[in-house]
């Protein structure tokens, strides 16, 4: 069976809509509805591993919640899990989003959603800088070790300073360079950016969204009666 190819916007919209629906809809209906919907989507997209992991986590949480009715000391923890469990299907879809699409594809779909340019740029920089920071910290840690400067909890402030000061200076220099590089490539042009990805909104994308929303409305009307 061919795997379902979705426009990332569909997943983003579902993830924005789903949690906010708890305000309007019957909780137990929505819980089951989301589980079924996310399961179908994950399997159709071929994200079997993500499905398995989220299903296991979900079942584990369900087990603890059931256990709490006979074993009272974990009641408050179980209550916390009840809330957390509701978001597990959404997490499954987010993992699928992160695994299936590169950051550039995500950004280009954010662009089509008419999210302000500054926000898109901020997201790009963040995505790019997490690995950069990790690398810079590794260099600094190594050079501290080489110079025989230990990171010790006995002198936390001093140690922290040794760790952070070089990083801050690196950050300042790198951010200036990266901004200059973006500017000479016309990042701030006041026109609608295009994208080299074929990120069209297809019939299947619309169908999935319509089905999802129809299910929500159906549930709303059913329980309103």
């Amino acid at each position, binding site marked *: 069976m061919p795997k379902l190819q979705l426009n990332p916007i569909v997943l983003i919209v579902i993830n924005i809509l789903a949690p906010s629906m708890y305000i309007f809809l019957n909780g137990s209906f929505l819980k089951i509805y989301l589980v079924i919907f996310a399961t179908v989507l994950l399997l159709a997209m071929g994200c079997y591993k993500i499905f398995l992991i989220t299903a296991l986590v979900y079942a584990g949480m369900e087990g603890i919640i059931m256990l709490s009715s006979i074993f009272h000391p974990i009641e408050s923890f179980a209550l916390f899990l009840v809330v957390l469990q509701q978001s597990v299907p959404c997490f499954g879809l987010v993992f699928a989003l992160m695994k299936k699409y590169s950051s*550039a594809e995500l950004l280009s779909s954010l662009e089509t959603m008419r999210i302000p340019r500054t926000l898109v740029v901020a997201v*790009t920089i963040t995505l*790019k800088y997490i690995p950069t920071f990790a690398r810079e910290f590794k260099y600094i840690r190594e050079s501290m070790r*080489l*110079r025989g400067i230990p990171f010790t909890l006995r002198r936390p402030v001093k140690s922290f300073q040794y760790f952070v000061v070089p990083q801050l200076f690196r950050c300042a220099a790198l951010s200036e360079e990266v*901004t200059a*590089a973006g500017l000479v490539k*016309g990042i701030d042009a*006041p026109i*609608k950016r295009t994208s080299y990805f074929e990120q069209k909104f297809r019939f299947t994308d619309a169908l999935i969204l319509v089905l999802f929303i129809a299910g929500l409305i159906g549930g709303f009307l059913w329980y309103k009666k």
Partner: protein
Amino acid sequence: MIELKNVTFEYGSAEGAAGGIGETVSNGSLKNINLKINEGEFVLLTGGSGCGKTTILRLINGLIPNFFEGKLEGSVTVDGFDVSHAELYDTAKSVSTVFQNPRSQFFNVDTTSELAFACENQGMAESEILQRIDKTVSELHLEPLMNRSLFDLSGGQKQKIACASVAVTGNKIILLDEPSANLDLKTIDELASLLKKWKAEGKTIIVAEHRISYLWDLADRTVVLKDGQIVRELSREQMDKISEEELHALGLRSARHPELVSGSHSQEMLKQVQHDSGDTTCFLTLQNFRYKYRNGYLALNIPQMQIPVGKITAITGNNGDGKTTLLNCLCGLGRRSKGTLLYQGKTYNRRGRQKLIFLVMQDVNHQLFTESVLDEVLISQSDANEDEARRILATLDLEAFADRHPQSLSGGQKQRVAVASAIASGRDIMLFDEPTSGLDYTHMLQIGEILRSLKDQGKTGIVVTHDRELIKECCDCEICLHDFNQINPAEGGKDA
């Protein structure tokens, strides 16, 4: 045509300044520059650090005064279009820039997006962008680099992507700011052939560079700057005639490739050293040095290698020959590094080596931690001794900066602070990772002098470098890592 008419510029703040406090180099400002560059011309801008060559590029691509602020007089026009009063995104449609640092000139996280980026910003149609990318990729043979994370590429590969992203825009004017600073000789050759191709296509190329030998046969004209002024313009004929001595007098590096010291030559040299001394205690002996990545890739496999004690040894090789991995293994970084070091009759394992060897990193910013230069030296000493620390600083001409913040110094001064801490730590063996990358002739000589003085103090220096001039200047012998590193491709690098 590009024209700078009576241009005088002074940076508004410390940014852009190349020289540190108290250094005699100027800070990149320009004084009354008049320069005309014709369409299709290849111009080399050169001169010492802070002479203003980067400033000229920033004026042409509009970063000055739009991003780097300051006091600007005179006019800068590109094809009659006043770039200093234009928006940057308009200038970006005709002028492209390749920067020095391959790590920070990308805005995206993967290669293909980076190639598309400039065109996307211009609102070009998808099909057009894809067509341009395909054309560039096949012309520059970049197929293996496509759709990869930029974080997984080497410096040379990143610089190729940077050049390709410029090619995709199809712009007629290409500026390059020290593009070779982080590249090995092989990659520099590739860069030179790309520039040759661009030149043949009629593009206007302006390169600001210290390392001029790879450009010397390509450029139509060389402009030499000093303290923000044009001190000499060399036409093609003059470039052919000028002697090395004249170039050095202008503070420039060699224009012709310095004679290569061959691998066999270095072996001879090593034997000579061994013969002279008659015993093996005057060697650092590396035994079974190995490093394997987590994915099983064997990056280093040196059954045995000897490095003379009390000498300066250059370690050369192309990217991927394992130079940086060897340095890391030598200093005992990385848990997966294996091997022992024999030094003065003692065997040092990985942990032991951490206290024996000091590494001056390529980016010294990673190893300066404290609030003052003096503190930097004091924390390196086993027992803090201020008099001794000041004496060490004096030997490196750093006495005047004792109370300064290390990060306020220039690159060369920071390097000397790192050397000062190395001396203070009392370690006998000092490693240098590309100490002259991006340095001009004068500063290269200065590093050579420091290395020689370390040798006079009885230290052993090991320098990983691509810089032939530095090797000529101060190294006693050269080890080409390619001859020693036995990564057997037949075994797929996966042997145990």
